[in-house]
């Protein structure tokens, strides 16, 4: 393994990251940040990936643009697939480094990951999030730092992105690293009504929710009750 990698890295040390540029430009891949080349070339960062990914050495060469072009078509397709998987798994490790977090901060500030679909989150930008760290299980989800829930991406092209390429840790480490990005949380919630009346079962549930909220350290406190004008009242 060591031989393979060092061969690949020495060849590609000076090459520009063409494959990465191409990968980044694919529609749907705008969630990924571009991994620093020296991060990829540091073997330490790739520890353990060789056993997870088929055609590891060839895929690594492809990512670093060091692949000899003498593969038959079948192998090439497989290597291409492995390269994406490899890039994604390196990505999951890179985005929880200081450099990676900084790159993702830039994207988050521009709301490049989209916004929370919840009405009361008022278009809060979201963060990509995996529900599993093992590849091939779940597609990427979106974590909203305001309501602390996970949502499915709206665009179909994002449903093909593996959640493991972002990982379960990323959004929470991100907010830990940039606590000023944590939005103010609100005790506001939707109260369903039928002909203007609250629904009994639901009102009971909301009272329990209030109890839990009061018992949660740091949870938002309810505002003084306002006149019941809208279904979007504070409790």
């Amino acid at each position, binding site marked *: 393994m060591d031989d393979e990698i060092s061969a690949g890295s020495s060849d590609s040390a000076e090459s520009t990251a063409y494959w990465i540029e191409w990968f980044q430009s694919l529609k749907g891949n705008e969630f990924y940040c571009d991994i620093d080349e020296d991060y990829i070339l540091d073997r330490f960062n790739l520890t353990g990936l060789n056993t997870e990914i088929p055609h590891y050495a060839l895929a690594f060469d492809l990512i670093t643009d060091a692949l000899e072009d003498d593969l038959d078509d079948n192998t090439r397709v497989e290597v291409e697939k492995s390269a994406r998987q490899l890039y994604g798994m390196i990505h999951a490790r890179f985005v929880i480094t200081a450099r990676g977090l900084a790159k993702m901060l830039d994207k988050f500030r521009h709301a490049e990951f989209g916004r929370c679909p919840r009405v009361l989150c008022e278009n809060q930008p979201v963060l990509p999030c995996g529900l599993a760290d*093992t590849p091939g299980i779940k597609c990427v989800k979106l974590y909203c730092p305001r309501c602390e829930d996970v949502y499915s991406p709206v665009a179909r092209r994002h449903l093909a992105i593996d959640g493991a390429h972002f990982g379960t840790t990323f959004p*929470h480490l991100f907010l830990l690293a940039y606590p000023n990005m944590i939005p103010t949380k609100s005790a506001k*919630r939707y109260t369903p009504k039928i002909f203007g009346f609250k629904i009994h079962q639901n*009102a009971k549930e909301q009272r329990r929710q209030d109890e839990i909220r009061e*018992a*949660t350290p740091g949870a938002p406190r309810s505002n003084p009750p306002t006149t019941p004008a809208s279904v979007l009242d504070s409790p």
Partner: protein
Amino acid sequence: MSPGGGTRQQQQQQHPRHQQAVYTNGHFDKQTDPDSDEFDGDPGNVPVMTHSVADAQAIYYGGGQQNQHGGRLRYDDVVGNGLVDEANGGDFIQDDEDSELEDPEDEDLEGEEMSAEDSYEETDSETGSSVISWVSWYCSLPGHEYFLEVPEDFIEDDFNLTGLSYGIPYYNEALDLILDIDQEEPANPACMSEIESSAEILYGSIHARYIITKPGLHGMLQKYLEGVFGTCPRVYCGALGALSLLPMGPSDVPGEDTIKMVCGRCGDLYFPKEAKYQSIDGAFFGTTFPHFLWLTYPDSLPPIVSRSENPIQFLRPPKMELGRVDDDENDDEDFGQDKRSSSSDEQDSRGTDDDSDDPLTYRIYQPRIFGFRVNERSVVGPRMAWLRWKDVVDEDGPRT
């Protein structure tokens, strides 16, 4: 066809312009118990609801035309008969069979809608009468898929329109336009666009009343079961394409707020996924409709299966999930070996241990850093789990 008197009455009172009167008549003032403004499902307790609930139950139990089980619509029917696209909402979607999840950024149909309206006008003036009725045309416009076609006799019944003439300019002309009645003198072209927008508001207001009648609810139920309204964007609601979304408006007054989607599982409001729905007036569906539909057809919502737990207890560390007691093991499996792929053939039979894709299990997202639950005292610690707490039904679910 015309709805029962009780239904009409509640519609009248429900309408926003009458609400003021209801309130000032002391309807609310009389109630001293703060909890008594909740509808508890007992028809006798809330006078406004009396007839409509009776009606609703008549449909639900006696309708007999809903499905093959003599009117009882169970969730299993919904999932089992292919009405639910199981791939939708699941992971790694391969094909593009469903346009509903298309990228909203790519679609901006407002312009198209305008031109469609123009073209309707053209056919109308050229031929003297349109080929299809105004209502059918309006409901077939792109972005109007959520609208039900209100039958002519409902619109023609003056009683159903009570109170609507107030505040709608060119009311009579707009009503004639909706009913495809030719004007004796053609309207001033300058007024035509105003009449058209009045017709839209008038139709929307009638629509909001119609969809809470027996046939209206039934029509909307069909749309719901066909998947027209889609799945909840929340991961733990929309798994396996479970249907739980209905359109609603945060206000019953036209022009105040746009349409929102309400989820019957998490009970929250969401923006419609597609941009073409985002500009529809919410009052055309109203605040009551979705909850009234679920009340009328309780089996149209997937049952929420989980073990009941004391909320305070479960909030105490380390437990955060609302899942089963052995949740810890389940969660760890997510991080350990790929259990699901080895038993992927079992995924659909609800026997797998992984709750997250089971549409019946209600779960709350648990943040983790390097596999460890985030401490609730951390700055990023969970603060909002209360919002998703639910009084879960302790049923004899698929697995006990």
